[in-house]
């Protein structure tokens, strides 16, 4: 999979609007996510930051507006059907959630290998790659452990390995350090940033924690479904 040049636009959202009943989650948000960039999306609870992440990743469809992904074959995410969006998330995007949301019955290695198997990689090769991905994140020799046998930080590393193992171009993280202590949070953020620094990949982190946002190269702040601050705009 060829990577985009750092600075090239990977995701472009234009005028995104999303309502849930009478409540407006997004009110005309436009945002570009660039390769090599780590973007923190901040805002108070209910400001629309998770909805923005879901729209960018094609998890939910906006009521109005578009999301364009400039991968190997550029596509308009918001016009794809459910199956095509699932395939896009499986092959091009990676996800890390607050509680890891790993499959408790599987071992750490199997959790990572599963992401590859879903894309058609045979199991032996998938498990081999999973072991290497875990080792790269400091979990060498832990591939056989069940998720319940890992600490919160270790489980989150497994989630990061799972998100990266397919060579995802865009990594989405929703409150990835929300359940961790400050030292482990710093370790997890360092690992997430490591995967985008100087590469053709991008990281989008939804957080309410200013400490987490400080790690990122760009901070976008939402309020009432609108972008009210963007450090990238200030820099320009």
């Amino acid at each position, binding site marked *: 999979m060829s990577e985009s040049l750092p600075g090239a636009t990977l995701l472009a959202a234009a005028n995104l609007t999303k309502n*849930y009943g009478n409540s407006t989650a997004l009110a005309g948000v436009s945002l570009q996510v660039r390769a090599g960039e780590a973007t923190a999306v901040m805002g108070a609870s209910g400001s629309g930051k998770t909805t923005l992440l*879901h729209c960018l*990743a094609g*998890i*939910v*469809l906006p009521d109005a507006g578009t999301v364009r992904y400039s991968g190997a074959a550029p596509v308009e995410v918001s016009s794809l059907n*459910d*199956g095509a969006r*699932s*395939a*896009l*998330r*499986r*092959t091009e*995007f*990676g*996800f890390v*959630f607050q509680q890891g*949301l790993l*499959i*408790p*019955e*599987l071992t750490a290695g*199997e959790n990572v290998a*599963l*992401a590859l*198997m*879903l894309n058609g990689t*045979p*199991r032996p090769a998938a498990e081999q790659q999973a072991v290497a991905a875990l080792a790269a994140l400091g979990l060498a020799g832990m591939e056989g452990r*069940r*998720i*319940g046998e890992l600490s919160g930080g270790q489980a989150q590393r497994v989630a990061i390995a799972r998100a990266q193992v397919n060579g995802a171009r865009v990594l989405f993280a929703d409150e990835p350090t929300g359940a961790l202590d400050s030292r482990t949070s710093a370790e997890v953020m360092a690992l997430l940033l490591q995967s985008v620094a100087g590469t053709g990949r991008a990281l989008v982190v939804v957080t309410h924690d200013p400490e987490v946002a400080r790690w990122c190269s760009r901070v976008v702040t939402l309020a009432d479904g609108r972008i009210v601050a963007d450090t990238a705009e200030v820099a320009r």
Partner: protein
Amino acid sequence: MSASGAVARAVDSSPWAVPLRLTWLLNRPGTAGSAAALLPAASFAVVTTLLLTVLAGALSFTQWGDDEGNLYLLLAAFALILLVLPLLTLGGSAARLSARRRDEHLSTLRLLGASARTVRQVTVLEAAAQAFAGALAGVLGYVVLAPFVQLIHFRGAALGSAYWLHPGAAAAGVAAVVVLAAVSSVISLRRVVISPLGVRTRADAQKVHWSRAGIAVLIVGLCVAGLMTPVGAAAIALAIIFAAFAGGLAVLNLVGPWLVARSAGLRLRRAATPQALLAARIILDAPKAAWRQVSALSMVCFTAVVAGAGAALLQTAQSGGPEDFLIQDIMTGVLITVIAGFLMVACSAGINQAATVLDRAELYRSLHRMGMPRDVIDAARTGAVMQPVVLVSTASAAVSGALLFPVVGAALIFNPVAMGFLAASVAVGILLVRAGLAATSPVLTSVLEADAH
């Protein structure tokens, strides 16, 4: 002091006072009403209808009062015992579903300072209340079925008005359903953790020791030896046959989880697809639960083997003697038990899967967000149930065949009529469980689509 005042004071001072008030607060008319709430109640209604129907049939045999009548009563008691395990399984499933359905309420109660014990009491009370509501509807079902069941013949005559239960017996049946639901909910809740942060099922992997297989072989040996021992009195012979079959069922429940775990272990090594890997791991994580979910099917298959041999015997028997009625009536009873058992298993499988999907809603949703197709999730959860189902059916048929062999001989067991009856029963059982799973497909869809609008 007025009687109502005394009752109110007694309730207030009872350790159940707070759970009772909380249960009412959470379930008073207008607060519940989702499909997930109706599912357990509807299942208990089916169970009660079946239980009362079988009970009514059994008690109608008291009208004769002769030796043969006593034999009929004994056989009917055996049929009732066969229905207890499916009922217990169903009660446990309903309790789990009840806890999942109300998880936000229950974890909020914990957050507000309610003890784990109080929250468990609330859950048990909810299960009991659902069972009670369902059981009342079940009584109605029993009455509606009456005109049809009254036409069934035993000892050459229709059941007729003898079918009607004494109100006390019906009340006892309802009470039994409620108590069994409460007891199985207590057992089932041991694996559920209700914390201030949410409700989840314990994820510790269960280990199943191989010694279960050794003990099982020993019991089968004792049963077969008992069946091959010549005895004089018919009552003793019958007692030995019952004991042997009870032993056979015990064997199945002892060895079942071990067999399920072994089979899943083999499948895990061979798993080449995500769904196969997931299904095998889900079973291996809780082989006892995987077995328990479908173990009631073992009873039904067991009974079906007996019914198959009975059908073959009927075909070869000479007509005319009173013993013809006995064989024919045993067949009728066995058929009723098989049908009741199948319906309970299907209800149990459906309700269990609804609880499981809700249990894992957040995980399924996240996997779907990451791009895991719905079909893969569906295939994994289906495989985790259907693989044990096939094992249960095969193992039950094999063990019951082995136990029946010394009694009726190979000719009857392998008779085409017997084999056909067994094959049809197993096929219907498997299809019913599959239908139960398919019925929960909308629950999975609603969970996955919760944020996809």
